[in-house]
């Protein structure tokens, strides 16, 4: 049952994934004029151009280039950086964990703040506290990540000196220092996400608490706390989880700018620097990894949803 569902979902995903790779591949084809000029600049010699052309495989037909590129990625070969000559796969191996750590920490923070706040607001619907929380959430969603990060640096790093504004260290070298450097970036993304989670939780809770089984639970004397958490919240977790899963793309987009502010050497910074240096294999590798990560998370969310909720599985 579940295996069949998994297979069906994956087979639906495959064409999308292929088109994604094709779109990313098209980046090099779409370069205006001669791609070697775009990459090397106007005053590169013919010899330099020829070397690059060969390196990129531009002397071959586009379809062959695409298949070779795709095959390479499937076997872990993402090409080499035009700037440093480093294999892109090695660069990715260093940078993916940083972005993933930032994403996971932000998500945890968003859930820890968002769900209790949502429940709190929903159980006091229409009260001043509810209005206050909703207002705070709406404001928090209007603050762009980069400004939120800057404000946090100004307050906690520059003025109070409590936390560093940069200075990333890998977790396995200095776990404490690593987490310290991750606090402000995670708050930057986490609070904005928390607002979304809160709104979703509140909406779902308001709907659930109106239902008959909640009344029944109350009528048979279940403690109010238990009604809210064991009966109410439990039924809200599915839609809330789905929304969190679907927001992963926004979250990673936020990670790109946040990494720039806090000088975290993650995927986002790699892509942005790659754009400045016109280092296409690096940009392409980074984008493919991010999009595949998003697709994977969406797939997992989708499956989790179907497994958790029998109504979906049966339909």
């Amino acid at each position: 049952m579940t295996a069949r569902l998994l297979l069906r979902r994956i087979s639906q995903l495959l064409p999308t994934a292929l088109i994604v790779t094709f779109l990313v591949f098209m980046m090099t084809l779409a370069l205006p004029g001669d791609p070697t000029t775009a990459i090397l600049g106007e005053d590169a010699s013919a010899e330099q151009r020829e070397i690059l052309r060969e390196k990129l495989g531009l002397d071959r037909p586009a379809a062959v280039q695409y298949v070779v590129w795709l095959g390479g990625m499937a076997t872990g070969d993402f090409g080499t950086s035009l700037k440093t000559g480093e294999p892109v796969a090695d660069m990715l191996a260093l940078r993916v964990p940083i972005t993933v750590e930032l994403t996971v920490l932000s998500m945890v923070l968003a859930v820890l703040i968002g769900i209790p706040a949502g429940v709190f607001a929903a159980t006091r619907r229409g009260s001043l506290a509810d209005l206050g929380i909703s207002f705070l959430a709406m404001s928090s969603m209007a603050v762009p990540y980069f400004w939120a990060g800057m404000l946090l640096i100004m307050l906690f790093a520059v003025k109070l000196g409590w936390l560093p504004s940069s200075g990333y260290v890998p977790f396995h070298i200095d776990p404490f220092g690593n987490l310290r450097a991750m606090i402000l970036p995670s708050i930057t993304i986490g609070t904005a996400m928390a607002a979304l989670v809160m709104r979703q939780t509140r909406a779902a809770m308001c709907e659930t608490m109106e239902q008959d089984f909640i009344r029944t639970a109350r009528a048979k004397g279940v403690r109010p706390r238990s009604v809210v958490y064991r009966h109410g919240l439990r039924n809200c977790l599915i839609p809330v989880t789905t929304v969190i899963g679907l927001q992963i793309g926004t979250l990673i987009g936020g990670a790109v700018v946040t990494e720039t502010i806090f000088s975290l050497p993650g995927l986002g910074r790699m892509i942005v620097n790659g754009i400045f240096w016109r280092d296409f294999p690096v940009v392409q590798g980074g984008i493919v990894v991010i999009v595949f990560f998003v697709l994977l998370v969406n797939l997992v969310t989708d499956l989790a949803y179907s497994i958790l909720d029998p109504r979906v599985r049966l339909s």
Partner: protein
Amino acid sequence: MTDASPAAPAITSPGRAILHRFFTSPLGVTGATILGVLIFCAILAPFIAPHDPTEIFWDHIQQPPSATFLFGTDELGRDILSRVIWGARVSLWVVICSIGIALLIGSLIGLISGYVGGVVDDVIMRINDAILAFPMLILALGIIAVFGPTLTNAILAIAVVNIPGFARVVRGQVLSVREHEFVEAARSIGLGPAAILLRHILPYVSGNVIVYASLRASAALITESALAFLGLGVKPPTPTWGSMLATAMQYWDAWWMSIFPGLAIFIAVLGLNFTGDALLDAKQATESDN
């Protein structure tokens, strides 16, 4: 006209009813007011800005807010208030152009996809899904990586990123009205597909499209600022909120350099969000009345 009995029910178009609801809701009024101020600043920037946004005051380098420079001056001695006012121009221009382009192209794709159906629909929707799999900022970055960081390319990138959303909204709507009687009637009197789509279906879906556009506008504004912040938007010395913030990152002690441009983005996004939410509310309330 004069002898119309007052008891007759007032016949208002749904559009008017929505607008009435919008302008009587606190959210809508607040949003519209903020947008009004922004548009006012953008259009009249040369007249209301106290100084030229690129003029350098050599003896007022990085001054905190004062009577002459209400928002202070930046690292080159330029008036921040004037730069914030001029910044509204670039941001609004990008939002209007990119959402406008996305609306036109996306709606057209959605109309065709929904009306023609079959293989065409399948292919278009698959490509749509693939584009939607890209985080918005990442796709915009990819497009700018190819065509280079300029204002026009930022507009195009934000437009492309938003096309699939519009296509999806319009397609869904077309699918639901395609079999309605009024469409059938149009077909029966011999109208071609183009006429049916443009004259009968388009007006029907336009309400949803406009509401969707207003909801996407704030995301477009944030993307524009993010691109400018990363140095991938407009070139200096043209003032934009995002690039002002990027500069401010090098001068932490000059708090006014980061507070005011950031506030401008925050208020603008809030205004767009309020407007979008209020429009959506008004539309849903009007529909449930009918």
